[in-house]
């Protein structure tokens, strides 16, 4: 049972335009959400996160929106740049009392074209 879903395996966007990557989750216990970016042959790199007490978090060109009632979050990249071409993973965490454990989506491959 996939608790974190990224239903779009790929997305193509022109340079300078907005990229919107979507993520849905089913577990209502998730209270922290993260986005990671991954280039080929490298490990995932942390990009931005949001706590469930917020509905928006912004860091430069990257903004994450959280809609708790819809169990949906999205990552907006504005403006998109060719270096943003990568696979983006959404991840979610629920309180455990010990180590945080992340549940990942299957990823969305973003291609930013010239």
């Amino acid at each position, binding site marked *: 049972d996939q608790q974190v879903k990224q239903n779009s395996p790929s997305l193509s966007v022109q340079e300078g335009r907005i990229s919107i990557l979507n993520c849905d989750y089913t577990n209502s216990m998730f209270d*922290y959400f993260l986005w990671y970016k991954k280039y080929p*042959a490298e490990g995932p790199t942390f990009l931005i996160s949001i706590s469930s007490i917020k509905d928006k978090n912004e860091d430069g060109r990257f903004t994450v929106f959280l809609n708790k009632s819809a169990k949906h979050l999205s990552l907006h990249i504005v403006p998109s740049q060719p270096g943003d071409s990568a696979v983006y993973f959404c991840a979610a965490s629920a309180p455990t009392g010990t*180590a945080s454990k992340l549940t990942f989506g299957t990823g969305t491959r973003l291609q930013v074209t010239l």
Partner: protein
Amino acid sequence: DAGITQSPRHKVTETGTPVTLRCHQTENHRYMYWYRQDPGHGLRLIHYSYGVKDTDKGEVSDGYSVSRSKTEDFLLTLESATSSQTSVYFCAAARQGTETQYFGPGTRLLVL
């Protein structure tokens, strides 16, 4: 960045042989994790550690064991490798009290 390195970076082995992957971190993070990445599955948690000698199972732990004898090192062992364990393995580490995990560069394992 937790200064995470993984070794080896690539390995080819035969079915039935034992394999050990090493993860090393330099930032004294309390928590460490092993994931595998496969097409169509994203990253799935194999095992994790919440301190020296303290480990627990993740989502896909069958066929794997781990050990953590020092804060900086977390070992993943495939006791008897199978072709279904062909994958890319990532180690991660996190500071106590935070949710953000930092990943190593990965180990690509091929089991023939």
